[in-house]
């Protein structure tokens, strides 16, 4: 029997009082794809950082091809044949592909010979693994999928036999993700070992041979992918049964609440980010905006939320919204019955150093109920926060705790409680479950559907197609500042939406 390509024995790592990894052991056989799945904060990234030499484990051993190996830094990891593709690429934007590939792996002080050598081996790699890229293209001019290929090539150029990919599909369209999986399959055929870290169950089911589930720093199970199901994996991740599908009745749309006509937005550089958007959201329905991040969805939310100037016409309940003037700020929007759960909860929706009760007042802090005379009525705010925390099951339910001390899901619940409980006519909600654990996702989805059933209009922006398809009553796809088309979830699939997301009209 061959030795495992990589074997971890009893890895433990603590950060202060937090036990990020507890006695973790896995064996990954060569020529297989091994998935590691777990919620945010389960310890996946810590484990991989230990493997790549960023952290030193408190206890435990690493064996590479049966040899006990010390990995004090990333250099040692590369020497041991480990390559890492990070979620956020580590590429120099204005360098060419070739320059990025040799960066840090130059032979000697002169560039020319290394570049020539790299070009040659790039051609070989291309043929071997079917990985096509233009070596002379500049990084900032190629797409995200291509950039990711460059990252993979970088690792292969450094003779990596074990490839670790951290949430590789987060920024890809479904088509790009499929291409990535084909490449990974090819690498597996050639005998490379791949560790895929993800929180998407579908990817695990599609491509991996074996899968390990992590929960709260512990490895709860390692199973053959063929022997398991998404439901079982979800249960292993969360520790209880979860509903993967959103439970909802058909929408009962009524009057138009939000009507957007020919909306255009320029960014600071004068580039048009929204190129004439038309959309309508009715009371009692959820309109989902799908698209790869960076195609104008953020700008749309910013305009509607009142913090970006725009041209065009927007009416809410038949009355025009001020798009550039004195009443185009967030406060005026709230007064018009528009609540907003922003995409970036940690930098926009919350102030991480502020307590939960200050965050609950945030944005509505001038509300009469929160004032007594010229001072704020802190006691009233705290009582209100406590009530909201109880209703939204925020844990721990302490209004005094700073926002940064809550988990991602509980932070999101604090924001949701603040916005939903205002009883808005229109709820804008961006990436409602980004960085949120599965257990909380279920709850958050239920809250959004409940608000819809109360007859509110909801505009949902998400880069997670699965979320859009299961939550939205209608789906609009954005690409390059335009709406490429609208579909009904029941009459479309990820493939069709994926093409729209890539700018191809079907």
């Amino acid at each position, binding site marked *: 029997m061959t030795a495992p390509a990589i074997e971890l024995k009893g890895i433990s790592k603590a950060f*202060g*009082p937090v036990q990020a990894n507890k006695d973790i052991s896995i064996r990954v056989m060569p020529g297989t794809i091994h998935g590691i799945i777990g919620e945010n904060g389960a310890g996946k990234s810590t484990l991989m950082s230990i493997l790549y030499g960023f952290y030193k484990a408190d206890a435990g051993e690493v064996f590479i091809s049966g040899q006990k190996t010390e990995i004090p830094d990333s250099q040692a990891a590369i020497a041991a044949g480990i390559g890492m593709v990070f979620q956020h690429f580590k590429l120099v934007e204005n360098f060419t592909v070739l320059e990025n590939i040799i960066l840090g792996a130059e032979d000697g002080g002169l560039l020319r010979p290394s570049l020539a050598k790299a070009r040659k081996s790039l051609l070989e790699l291309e043929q071997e693994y079917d990985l096509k890229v233009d070596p002379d293209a500049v990084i900032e001019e190629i797409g995200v999928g291509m950039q990711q290929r460059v990252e993979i090539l970088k690792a292969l150029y450094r003779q990596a036999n074990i490839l670790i990919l951290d949430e590789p599909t987060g920024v890809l369209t479904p088509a790009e993700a499929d291409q990535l999986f084909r490449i990974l399959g090819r690498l597996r055929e050639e005998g490379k070992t791949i560790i895929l870290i993800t929180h998407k169950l579908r990817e695990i089911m599609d491509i991996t041979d074996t899968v390990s589930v992590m929960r709260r720093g512990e490895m709860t199970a390692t199973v053959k992918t063929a022997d398991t199901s998404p439901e079982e994996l979800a249960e292993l991740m969360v520790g209880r049964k979860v509903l993967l599908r959103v439970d909802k009745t058909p929408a009962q749309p009524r009057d138009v609440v939000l009507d957007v006509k020919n909306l255009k937005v320029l960014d600071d550089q004068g580039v048009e980010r929204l190129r004439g958007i038309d959309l309508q959201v009715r009371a009692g329905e959820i309109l989902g905006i799908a698209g790869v991040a960076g195609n104008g969805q953020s700008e749309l939310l910013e305009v509607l*939320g*009142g*913090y970006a100037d725009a041209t065009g016409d927007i009416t809410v309940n038949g009355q025009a919204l001020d798009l550039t003037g004195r009443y185009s*700020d*967030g*406060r*005026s*929007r*709230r007064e018009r019955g528009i609540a*907003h759960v*922003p995409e*970036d909860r940690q*930098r*926009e*929706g*919350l*102030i*991480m*150093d*502020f307590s939960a009760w*200050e965050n609950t*007042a*945030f*944005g509505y*802090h*001038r509300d009469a109920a*929160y*004032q007594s005379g*010229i*001072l*704020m009525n*802190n006691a009233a705010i705290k009582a209100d926060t406590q009530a909201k925390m109880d209703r939204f099951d925020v844990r721990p339910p302490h209004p005094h705790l*700073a926002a940064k*001390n809550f988990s991602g899901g509980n932070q999101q619940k604090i924001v949701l409680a603040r916005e939903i409980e205002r009883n808005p006519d229109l709820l804008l909600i961006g990436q409602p479950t980004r960085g949120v654990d599965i257990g909380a996702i279920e709850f958050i989805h239920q809250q959004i559907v409940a608000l819809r059933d109360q007859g509110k209009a909801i505009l949902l922006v998400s880069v997670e197609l699965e979320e859009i398809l299961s939550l939205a009553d209608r789906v609009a796809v954005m690409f390059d500042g335009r709406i490429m088309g609208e579909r009904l979830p029941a009459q479309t699939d990820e493939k069709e939406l994926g093409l729209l997301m890539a700018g191809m009209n079907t």
Partner: protein
Amino acid sequence: MDVMPKWAEVVLVPLISLILAAILSALVILAIGEDPVAAVKLMVSGALGSTYGWGYTLYYATNFMFTGLAVAVAFHAGLFNIGGEGQAMLGGLGVALVCLFIPWPHWTLAVLGATVGAAAFGALWAAIPAYLQAKRGSHIVITTIMFNFIAAAVLNYMLVNILRPAGSMDPATARFPEAVHLPSLHEMLAPIGINFSKSAPANVSLVLAIIACFVVWLLIWRTSLGLEIRSYGKSGRAARYAGIGSVRITMIAMLISGGLAGMMAINNVMGEAERLVLNAVEGAGFIGIAVALMGRSHPFGVFLAAILFGFLYQGGAELALWTSIPRELIVVIQALVILFTGALDNMVRMPLERIFLAIRQSREAKATKAAE
């Protein structure tokens, strides 16, 4: 979770920083061949050993409270106002104009008028850099520092060419009328039987400074404007999301900041000199930065830090007077205090955090053992 309990954060860290600064200062005093123990004794007795010493310490502390609060308020909005010096100079001009050209019947009214004048002029001086920052993105650190120089030139011009009484050789205004004389601590405390030194400059402005500390505390932590200022300072994007205007907050925070810096003039111009002279501020605007840093931008911290710096100022003056330790050494000691309490904060904090962590872990380990 926060690693350290709050008392350690608020008390222990600054205290250890101070002790480190003191040790290093002692080494410097040793190095120039003086006796650090005698120096400390002299500083303490000179600054705190008599009501005369206290009078000076509190006088300086009053200045530093105003300028420290000024820096602290701007800090909360994420703005670094290092123009306290110039704003206090202009505040002095405001006080002088109010005191010289309005016939006040009584000091109680005069001090209100002077407060308005001082705050208005200080705020005005902060308003221009604030506007440039808010509307045009000119960095406030650069503009406020340049405005310090412009303020000095304006003051020079006003004193030499306009406000100087005819025939005087001194670039200063005439003496303020007797009616605007502010009661000194001596005069305030005599009726209740405390014999405070007659010649010390501390005066009723100290009470105003303490009130200012309290009002700033209310403003920052108890009003919605304070919440807006703090939000803007913590996260510009979050503030934008909440509909808190950046121009509005920048202007308001800087106006309050400049006003507070200007109000220092009630103490040094109206309370002490009773006329406006050149260089009346004597660097208090800059000390305010250190005071705000050390006080963690909290009004109570500013209050304590201002008294500490008042002590350093007065004790240092005594040192220079009675020993051959040069006055510059006082600047060195102040710099060390600033360095340790402000810039080298993490040097003390991180080992402390580790100690607290170790204590907590051993306690938890014991608890789990007991549970088993």
